[in-house]
Structures are given as structure tokens and as C-alpha cells.
């Protein structure tokens, strides 16, 4: 562990879009919806009476509407309760934001400025899963729907990056801007504008998306999600384990939000995720979100434990494992928050390689913003001239060594 504080003051002067950011990504997906849709489609066959019960459409709309509001409310309550009990200030702690919906999956993200925000947001996500799952069971019982949850974290802009999409060009784009022809630089300029709009309180042009290896990893992890449980990446598990999650704080939050989980972590072992972790597999952890009303879950949890496939972890042992995994891994690193002064986490330090890359990107940005990387395309030529002789097609053919043209 490197305990030397890093001097990262210069990064504070970088444009907003280049400042390192750690984001938590949260996914909730309806399980069993495909089967419900297929089953329901049979009711619209010719000669069949239309189904009278409420079906997948109502359930899905209900899920999207309810999940967002349940999560946002649970997060706000949990966050307030935490700051109240811990006596900490809410400095840059912005609320989680809706990212997008993909099919029956809803995704949020949360910018992380302090480590505890990770487990608070994951806890609130668990609450929403638990509540909406319960409501789906009550209101749409015949459909057999459940909810699968996933959480993972990803750092920007060195490992992963942001994209601004769907910016429509305007007639004024005929004006020459060198970056237009270079998608990567165009995106950098769009990102700068996006962040400037956000800072100014304006609605930014275009839609932002997140891409990169850790985003891919998160979606791969979500493919392993289990109904009624919350599967989390090793980086997210590490962030929970390593950053002073105090069970006293959890208890205080539970007084406000009673479904808030105890944060018992289970280790689900290594899973083969397509494209990740080679042959050894990717380690997955599960947060027990606590489903006391669900006999099936409780019974399966016991079975998993007894068959040694999913064990509740000893927190120190799990932390040791995560440290070793990050140390030995070639494609992962400790998550870090660049301006987090608390150095308890080794991840609080930015790797030198990241600092160098960031500096390179900043240099590039300086040149782009100064428009110093390309000359404008000028065509200012004289139009008063007498054309010289002997510059006909045959001359060009001859000079270029092309085969002589056949005279027609």
C-alpha cells in the first residue's frame, strides 16, 4: 500500500470532462418477462377471447415507473440517515441518475465522490428490488415475474470513456472545424460542451453514454444475475468491504429504511464471463438483500451454502482476496477516487500509468481547444489567369505513365 499522498492539484485545473470519475452502475432486470410475453401472445390468436387479466405490458410499465421512484426515495432517505448518524457533510454527493433502459432492464449510475456512497446506493437499489419485486408478486402473480439486480463500478476517462451521441449537425456545420472529421476529437469537443452545459445548469445537447472494458464487464456480470439477489463485481465488493462500512451506520439507516440490507456478502465463486478473466473465471459476489417473505430463496440459500457454492464471506478474508486479485490481475486495478483524501483504501491512489495517460489527454485537449492541430482548408486562389498550353489529357496521361488513351 502506497501511503505517500499524491499531488493531484493540477488535475483540479483540468476541464471537467477530463477529471477522473468513479461511477457506480446499477442494473435491475425483470426475470421471466420473455416467457410471460410469449404466453400472453397466444391469447391474441384468431378465435381466442382476449385475455382479461393484466399482463406483461402493465407489469413492465409498472416496473419502470415504480422502480425509479422507489430507488430514488430509498437513496434519499438512506443518504440523509447516513449523514445524520455519521456527522459527515454532503459535499459533492449528487443523487443517482437514470442512465437508460434496455428491453426490460433499467440502469442508473451514481458518481462516487466518497466511498460510502457505493454501499448506500447499492443498499437503496436492494430496497427498490425488494419492494418492486414484492409488488410484482402481489399485483401480477400469475406472470411469475422476478427482478435480477447487478452493481458494478467503473473509472473514467482512462480505462473507460464517455460518448456524446446523437448531436445533430446544423447548417452552420459547413463552417470548417477540424475535429469534425476526426470522431475521437469530435467526441472530446462534444464532451467538453456537454459538461459546460451541465455546469451552467443547461440541458446538454446529445445523449451521453458510457463505454469501456469495465462497462462490458458489468453487463457480463449482469448476465449472471439471479432473481431476488444482487450480484456485484469484485471492484464493487472491494469498495464495500474496504471502505469502513460500519454496521452501526447500517443499523441507523435501517431505522429510516427498514428494507435496507445488512450487507451480508456471499461469494459465488469464479464464473466464466465471455471475454473476461481468461480461463480462471471472474469472481462474483452476491449481496443478500434479505427476502424474509420468500421461503424459496431462504431454502435455496441454505442449499447453496451447504453445497459450498455460495458462502457468506468473512469480510477480512474477502478483502484479502480482492487485494491479491487486483495485485495479480493484468486487466484490473484498484478502484480509486482521485480527490478522496482518505488513503485507507489503496485504491485511493491513482496509478502512475493513469496519471500519465490523463496528462497526455490533457495535452491533446489543449491543442484541440487551441485549434492548433490542423490548418483550415483554404481554397483562396486567383481566378484571373490565362491557362497555360499543353496541359491536356494526353499530357497528364503521359506524365503519369498511364496507358495511352484510345482515340474515339
Amino acid at each position, binding site marked *: 500500500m502506497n501511503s505517500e499522498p499524491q499531488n493531484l492539484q493540477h488535475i483540479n485545473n483540468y476541464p471537467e470532462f477530463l477529471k477522473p470519475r468513479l461511477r457506480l452502475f446499477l442494473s435491475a432486470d425483470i426475470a421471466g418477462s420473455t416467457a410471460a410475453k410469449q404466453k400472453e401472445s397466444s391469447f391474441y390468436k384468431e378465435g381466442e377471447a382476449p385475455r382479461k387479466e393484466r399482463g406483461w405490458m402493465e407489469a413492465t410499465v409498472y416496473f419502470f415507473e415504480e422502480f425509479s421512484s422507489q430507488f430514488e426515495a430509498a437513496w434519499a432517505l438512506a443518504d440523509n440517515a447516513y449523514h445524520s448518524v455519521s456527522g459527515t457533510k454532503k459535499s459533492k454527493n449528487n443523487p443517482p441518475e437514470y442512465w437508460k433502459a434496455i428491453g426490460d432492464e433499467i440502469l442508473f449510475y451514481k458518481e462516487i465522490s466518497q466511498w460510502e456512497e457505493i454501499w448506500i446506493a447499492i443498499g437503496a437499489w436492494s430496497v427498490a428490488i425488494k419492494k418492486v419485486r414484492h409488488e410484482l408478486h402481489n399485483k401480477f402473480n400469475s406472470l411469475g415475474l422476478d427482478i435480477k439486480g447487478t452493481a458494478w463500478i467503473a473509472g473514467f476517462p482512462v480505462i473507460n470513456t464517455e460518448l456524446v451521441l446523437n448531436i445533430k*449537425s446544423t*447548417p452552420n456545420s459547413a463552417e470548417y472545424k477540424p475535429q469534425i472529421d*476526426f470522431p475521437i476529437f469530435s467526441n472530446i469537443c462534444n464532451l467538453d460542451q456537454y459538461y459546460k452545459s451541465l455546469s451552467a445548469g443547461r440541458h446538454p445537447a446529445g445523449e451521453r453514454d458510457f463505454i469501456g472494458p469495465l462497462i462490458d464487464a458489468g453487463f457480463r456480470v449482469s448476465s449472471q444475475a439471479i432473481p431476488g439477489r444482487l450480484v456485484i463485481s469484485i471492484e464493487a465488493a472491494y469498495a464495500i468491504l474496504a471502505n469502513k462500512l460500519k454496521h452501526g451506520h447500517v443499523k441507523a439507516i435501517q431505522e429510516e429504511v427498514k428494507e435496507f440490507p445488512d450487507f451480508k456478502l456471499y461469494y459465488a465463486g469464479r464464473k466464466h464471463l465471455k471475454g473476461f478473466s481468461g480461463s480462471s473465471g471472474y469472481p462474483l459476489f452476491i449481496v443478500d438483500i434479505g427476502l424474509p417473505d420468500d421461503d424459496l430463496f431462504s431454502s435455496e440459500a441454505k442449499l447453496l451454502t451447504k453445497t459450498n457454492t455460495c458462502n457468506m464471506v468473512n469480510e477480512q478474508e474477502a478483502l484479502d482476496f480482492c487485494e491479491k486479485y487486483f495485485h495479480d490481475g493484468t486487466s484490473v486495478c484498484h478502484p480509486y477516487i482521485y480527490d478522496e483524501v482518505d488513503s485507507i483504501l489503496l485504491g485511493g491512489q491513482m496509478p502512475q*500509468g493513469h496519471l500519465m*495517460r490523463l496528462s497526455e489527454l490533457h495535452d491533446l485537449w489543449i491543442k484541440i481547444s487551441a485549434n492548433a492541430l490542423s490548418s483550415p482548408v483554404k481554397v483562396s486562389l486567383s481566378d484571373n*489567369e490565362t*491557362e497555360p498550353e499543353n496541359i491536356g489529357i494526353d499530357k*497528364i496521361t503521359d506524365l503519369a505513365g498511364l496507358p495511352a488513351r484510345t482515340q474515339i
Partner: protein
Amino acid sequence: MVLVSLLRRGAPCNHYSWSTYNQIMSEATQKNYEAPLPCGWGKNTIEGIAERFAVAINFKCDDEIEPVVSRLGGSIEYEDFPLENAMLAGWIEVEGTKDFRIRLNNDANSIRDRFTIAHELGHYVLHYLFALEKRGNFKLSANLIDGKRQGLDPDPENEANYFALALLMPKIAFTESYNANTSVVKHKNPLELVATKFGVPIWAVNARADSLELIK
């Protein structure tokens, strides 16, 4: 750790990675390349040369331009350019007649590549082939980062740009399309339609329209 960032680059073929601008210039010096000198011709002459060149090489404005390079005996290489020239679109190095290569920036999009190839062919025709009689045999490197050439009047870069505009957007076809799309068709960005038709950046459509005095 695999670093994927805002500056991720791929190299489909003929991959080179330059570390510094000095490396480029050093190689150009070692190989005794010379910078292009302006031909000094005006718009009409260069327009005429581009039209005749298109006929000579059997190129129509909606054709792909890469085969033209092959037909002339040249090659195209895609490279990672150094940071300080990250938005340099490309340049041409000519060893001799039927022996040249056009070096393109991996980060540019395909529409810009098309314009860059036409621009470099402009250098090849105007500043190499037509310069041979005056300069004798020489080797040409027409990269845009030669500081000594900046501010020349006439500027060989302007000449190559005009050649590219005329080659990719022939006067008659362009005028017809531009007038039709800007005056009749209701579209939020008519220049985009013209740009798509001719396979060029929108700014190039604007530059061509300006040079032909079509902008009302």
C-alpha cells in the same frame, strides 16, 4: 492493464506508430524529400486539370477514390499520428512517377480520408508530375507540417485543396445538385444531402459552393 481511453486507436492495416514530430521530419530529411512548390495556376486552370485528370484516370465523382491511387502506381497506408499532429489528415511521399504512398491518419473518418486522398493526388499531379520538367527528378514529401511552407503565396496547399474540390465535385454536376438541394428540397440541412451525394465533408461542399459563387 488494457488502457482504453478517449484516445483509443485501431490500425486496420499497414500500421505505423510515430512517437514524435521530429521522427517524421527526420525521416523526410534522411530520404531527401523536398517540399512542394506552388504551381502558381489559378482556379480555372486547376479546375481544368482536375477534370482532365479524372478522364485520364477514368474516375467519376461517385467512384471510390482508392483504386485511382492503385491505377497510378501508388499505395495508401493508415497510421497512428503523434499527439502533436493528431489532427493532421495525411500527406503524400513521392519517390518517382508511379511510385508514391499516401499516409493517412487512423483517427480521421472515411469521408475525410476521401478528401485527403484527392488532396494528395492534387500534390502528385500539380506539384510533382507537372514540376518534373522544371525541377528535374526529385522526391516530394507534401506533409502539412512543414513550417517553412506556411504563408507561401500562392500556397501549394490551397492549390491541392482546389484540385480535390474540383475532382470530387465536378463543376456541372455539383452546381446542379447544389442548386436543386438548396432551393427545392426541403431539408433541415441541404448541404448534408449534397455532401452525401459526393462523398465529401459538409465543409467541403460549402467551400466548393463558395468557390463557384453559388452561395446566395
